């Protein structure tokens, strides 16, 4: 199916990989406006890879990816960034030796003109960072660093935010905080696609989810639907 009205992102039967081998065999997913969509699945399912495909880090060998009316299947990352998709990597996602404010500045590197509204938006979303604006990102706690990482990505006012395992290594308290922040970002008008290892919690807070396994779709539905599904539960023993 092609791009449906209301879809911000649409990935159709996507096939691709890094080198010669395909990691994704047939992945389809959509993200609508003001939606949080999560990709879950066992290790090696290709969750992060699917996200990297959206961001242009993979070799596309089949299928397509459409964003905001454009076919971005073969675009390079910097062009994709300019078109409105921002990516927050799982690790090494801040400049540790630069201050919080400088990190945000670097997030807006490609933007010209006045950045004040962008800073306002981020500091409003993440009030904790205001007091820490001059602190080095490397000196912050894990949760605060994740805020900086997301804030960095939001400086370009993206339509779609890609989050790669944002709660990895965080305590339950920070995890909840990140989920709350993510909801705030969605309410501010940004669509969010994220990959999560903590499937249960992620499905509880997301609007819709996709379960991937071995590089292809397995299940899809709203968060609640997937949580209730027995097959899905079996895939994640204790997940």
């Amino acid at each position, binding site marked *: 199916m092609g791009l449906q009205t209301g879809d911000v992102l649409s990935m159709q039967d996507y096939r691709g990989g890094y080198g010669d081998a395909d990691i994704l065999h047939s992945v389809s997913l959509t993200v609508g406006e003001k939606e949080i969509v999560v990709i879950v699945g066992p290790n090696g399912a290709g969750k992060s890879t699917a996200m990297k495909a959206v961001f242009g880090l993979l070799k596309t060998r089949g299928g397509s990816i459409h964003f905001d009316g454009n076919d971005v299947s073969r675009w*390079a990352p*910097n*062009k994709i960034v300019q078109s409105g998709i921002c990516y927050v990597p799982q690790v090494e996602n801040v400049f540790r030796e630069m201050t919080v404010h400088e990190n945000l500045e670097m997030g807006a590197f490609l933007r010209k003109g006045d950045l004040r509204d962008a800073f306002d938006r981020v500091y409003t979303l993440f009030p904790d960072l205001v007091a820490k604006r001059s602190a080095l990102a490397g000196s912050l706690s894990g949760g605060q660093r994740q805020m900086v990482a997301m804030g960095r990505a939001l400086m370009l006012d993206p339509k779609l935010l890609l989050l790669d395992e944002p709660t990895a290594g965080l305590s339950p308290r920070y995890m909840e905080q990140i989920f709350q922040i993510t909801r705030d970002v969605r309410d501010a008008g940004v669509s969010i696609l994220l990959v999560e290892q903590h499937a249960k919690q992620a499905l509880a807070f997301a609007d819709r989810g996709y379960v991937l396994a071995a590089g292809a779709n397995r299940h899809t539905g709203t968060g609640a639907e997937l949580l209730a599904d027995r097959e899905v539960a079996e895939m994640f023993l204790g997940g």
Partner: protein
Amino acid sequence: MEIWGLLNYAIFMATFIGIYALLSLGLNIQWGLGGLFNAGIAGFFGVGAYTSAILTTQPVDGRLGGFDLPIVIGWISAMIVAMLIAWPIEKICSRLRSDYLAIATIGIAEVIRLVIKSEDWLTNSARGITQVPRPFGDLPYFESQLAYLVIVVALVIVAYVLIERQLKSPWGRMMRAIRDNEPAARAMGKHIESRRQEAFIFGAAFMGLGGALFAHLNRSITPEAIDPMVATFLIWIMLILGGSGNNRGAILGAVVVWIIWSFTEILTDQLPHEYAIKAKYIRIFLIGLMLQLVLRFRPEGLLPEPQSGTPMPSEATGQKTKEREA
């Protein structure tokens, strides 16, 4: 007379090539096998030369020496002293990237040069050590040169065989495993740092021996006998051009580069005097350029390593994601 002259020159050249082949083989163990960047080869060379000279010459006033030991002892000691110096240098750098070893070896070569130049009582400073004995030195000139060539060639062959055997041994296989995939080797519990130290010390021994052979060939050794940077660099380009990781490549590189180097010297010697001086630096420029060209267009060298995997030691410096056209 002409024929004799040419023959003598050929024998002299061949002896030099043999000595440089030994140095190149030594570097191959350090770089080709161990991935270690030794930018101070001249230091180990010098240490070997002076050790052997000091130990094998007659007593002389004002200078330590006169042990008048047999030449073989001199040569073996040269290797041992080179190894003794190599060990701490590598150990200090063993957990750090190769860049640091490059700097440290530049440093140790400098310090060795300083000691040679300043410590009168040890090295006779600028005047150097003379009357270094020669094996079969009492023979007539031609026979003596020939005898020395035979010795050097024999040593090269022995070295080659020895190193080849080591390469095929479990130690050699482990070295290659470390070089080709360090994270995997480390995960298997291989003690990377010790193996690298062994490679460095092993290679240094050959460099010390080369220095000793040089001193005994010329029957003397002075601080000015070799230009340290040029010598170090010549050996590097011998190895890279010949094919690093590859013993035959090391020897071939020595042959090719030394012939080119000597040939250009003959050419520039024909020039009028004021150009001849500058010509030396032009030759150095060309040899530097040659390395850049080889690195660019034929980094595997003339004799690429037959093994699978890169001839160049790989480092886990992280691969970047390939960038597409925007």
